[in-house]
């Protein structure tokens, strides 16, 4: 299978995603420049973390106008798998590929630390290897991870099973204390209705080897690889 990793000016987790996909999981991975005229063949597109265009404006607000985004919207429309991690998630929200918006962390500070997230929906292409209810230990590193959606939107997400990950305690309890950034309903990751576009704040590429403190992130990559293999 083949991952395509988009590089915006200011992306800074692109190389880490490449390392995880290629060196850790042994799959093909290519970088795609944000101004690339041709979009490469790929089974899954990764929008990596970072500060696209510096994020001096609202996070992801400029990246959504980048020339590559048209291709990504098309790719997602054809049912291709897209995963946006951290800044990638913020860009997906700005681009309208996922519902909701991102606010500054409730503590008004950048937070970098390992957190626990609960797999709320294990029937997506991104989570099949995790298993329902599985608690993953994966780090976050962001200033704007406070996911917001209105009551109606939240209800829809819940009814459609679009909430994929929630911040939780080590034992899986979803509590206020476990919520690092104030996100509505402890949301750490969501998919679109069709289930082929995932946005998540935690960084699975930083937690795919025991040397880095956790291998749980690899489960997400494995799910994607299995899904691509089945097609």
């Amino acid at each position, binding site marked *: 299978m083949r991952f395509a990793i988009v590089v915006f000016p*200011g992306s*800074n987790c692109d190389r880490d995603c490449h390392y995880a996909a290629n060196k850790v999981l042994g799959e093909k991975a290519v970088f795609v420049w944000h101004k690339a005229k041709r979009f490469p063949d790929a089974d899954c597109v990764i929008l990596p973390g970072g500060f696209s*265009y510096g994020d001096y404006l609202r996070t992801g607000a400029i990246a959504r106008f980048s020339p590559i985004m048209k291709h990504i919207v098309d790719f997602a429309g054809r049912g291709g798998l897209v995963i946006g991690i951290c800044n990638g998630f913020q860009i997906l929200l700005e681009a309208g590929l996922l519902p909701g918006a991102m606010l500054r962390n409730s503590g008004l500070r950048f937070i970098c630390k390992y957190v626990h997230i609960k797999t709320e929906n294990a029937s997506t292409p991104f989570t099949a290897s995790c298993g329902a209810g599985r608690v993953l230990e994966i780090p976050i*590193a962001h200033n704007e991870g406070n996911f917001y959606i209105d009551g109606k939107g939240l209800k829809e997400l819940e009814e459609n099973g679009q909430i994929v990950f929630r911040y939780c305690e080590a034992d899986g309890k979803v509590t206020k204390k476990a919520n690092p950034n104030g996100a509505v309903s402890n949301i750490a990751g969501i998919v679109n209705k069709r289930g082929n576009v995932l946005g998540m704040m935690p960084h699975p*590429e930083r937690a795919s080897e025991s040397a880095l403190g956790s291998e749980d992130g690899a489960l997400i990559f494995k799910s994607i690889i299995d899904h691509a293999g089945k097609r």
Partner: protein
Amino acid sequence: MIENTGAIDKDIYRALGLRDEDYRRIIRILGREPSPTELAMFSVEWSEHCGYSRSRSLLKKLPRKGRYRVLIGEDSGGIVMGDSAIVFKMESHNHPSQLEPKQGAATGVGGIIRDIFTAGARPIASLNSLRFGPLSEPYNRYLLKGVVDGIQFYGNCLGVPTVGGEVYFDESYSGNCLVNAMSIGIARKDKLARARAQGAGNSIIYVGSSTGRDGIGGCSVLASQEFGEGDEKRPSVQIGDPFTEKCLIEATLEALSRGGIVGIKDMGAAGLTCSISEMAFDGKAGIDADLDKVPRREEGMEPWEVMMSESQERMLVCVKKGREDEVMRIFHKWDLNAVRIGEVTGEKVVRIRNKGRIVAEIPPDALADAPIFKMSSKRPAGSGRIKRLNARKLPVPEDLNKVFTKLISSPTIASKEWIYRQYDHMVQAKTISLPGSDAAVLRLEGTKKGIAAATDCNGLYCYLDPYRGAQIAVSEAARNIACSGAEPAAVTDCLNFGNPDKEETYWYFENAVKGIADSCRFFGIPVVSGNVSFYNESPKGPVYPTPAIGMIGIIDDTARLCTRGFKNEDDIIILFGETKEELGASEYLKEIHGVVRGPVPEINLEREKRIRTAVLECIKKGYLNSAHDCSEGGLAVAVAESCFGDGRRILGAVIDNLKEKIRLDALLFGESQSRVIASANKIMFNQVRKIAEKEGAPVTVIGRAGGRRLSIFRGQRKVVDVPVKSLYKTWSLSIEKRLERGS
């Protein structure tokens, strides 16, 4: 020919930091009066910050040889390990941070990282060494918050993890905080870049941000003078744009990998003046540059302003003739300016043109060769007296639980979690030892090896005894590196002192440099790069002499990585080294008794080396489950920190085999050097003892890990007994609480 504009007024060159004899020397060199642009160029290149007039002769004493081949570059230094070069350096940004903490710290990070990638190395980690006045003062709280905000703002955006460092709080830094930033990069050794302009006809290309009026005189007016009462120098602080720097990193590394580049240098202190004149000097060539071509962000800038501007995120590149387009295309791809502003010439002259006229014409040697001053030093009156301590006058406190809890919440000792949580310390996926151990550890892709890094310096020790204090800073950094399982390999230093023209201040500087030189030479650890920051004084006086040591070490097999936290219930706790009755200069004396004096703990380098070697050997063999250097707060604090680990798993401990017949407070909180608290499975102790005996290192089992309390006995008497989780809370939340409630 340059037009004669007449003699320049004394007040003008003096305001730029030049002395009368410097001005006379300039006239001698040029054979005429300098033009305003030339005067500006001399003033920045000859400033203490760039020219090292007051420190160069002493710095030559620092050793440059070690186990690994040493690289000394124009802007940084490093070591060679196999096919790789590890490039690193530490630099100060104290004065800008004192005035405008966020931008001051941010541009400090930006500047040091440019020094790394300009050498062709990809920056893989940052550390910082910070000093502030007490958090009870509102301005110091503002500084801490602002500095941390600046470091996170810049470093996080760049995607260079901030993996470690240290922070101390002391009254002496009120009015002049210290912000020292260190950066580490890695390159293939055959891909290292030089900062030279060579080959007549080759092009000089300006890349990066446009030039504005920000930072004019940053190095001369701001960094090379003492602070007055006001903050009228704020316009000399630069503004950082990490996004542009991120693009500059990628474009530079991409361009360097393609070839066609002869040399490259960042525009840091002294901006264009520095990069043009030093690239010409280091390449033994001349440069002819036209300022009209320099991208500007402001209208109507005078030529001297363009030459002195310290606008950030700019570099100068010397490109082989005929390959300009190829190189410029890469920078344009990243939406950066890339403009040919001049060319290399065969005559050794730096010639600057503006609006069709020559505004400066100077031999690069003259600019680079700042005058060396004869410095005099004098032992300060009373420096012997403050080293004496009459401990009999100090009662041993009754309630040691209370004392312990108070000590552990002192900001210097308390957890720095509030700070490092805000730094992305994991990006690049190399950080294999999370913050909260003695050293940060980064793995090197494709090998089993890792780099450990730590910074260290106890300014109070250096104030009481600069020679010994500096030796301890080096020793402790090496001990921290060893506790992570790494062999100490090389040092960068950032020497923060007061006004060197005061003889007493220079005495501190002289002795501290000697202390670093002697200890590094003894340990065989080379000093490969560094920075001197003088004039760290407020109207209240100078800061404590603070020669910050940044050290890196090499781990051969990262599977043997060691951290400071106890791992298992019932592991034995081992003390390497010995506790003596040494209360002087301790954090305990300062925090609990309000006494700042006393002899600095003894340091014996031979003994230090034996103990360090024994600990490292035991780690490499896999005998130890944790190791932690015993420093500020003494044995009790070190044991507590090992109980806390990285906060993810907290264990208690019982310490019940302390036999030293010394004052109880010295036993618990004294800061005797060359001690390490380790833990191991008890079946390993025989092996540990054998290694320790072979190395001649004292080793004792002092207790065991486990349970929910931290209890310390002396004989049968329980002298400390606290629930370890509540102690952890006190320790981990202390800084945050002080910032929130404002005391």
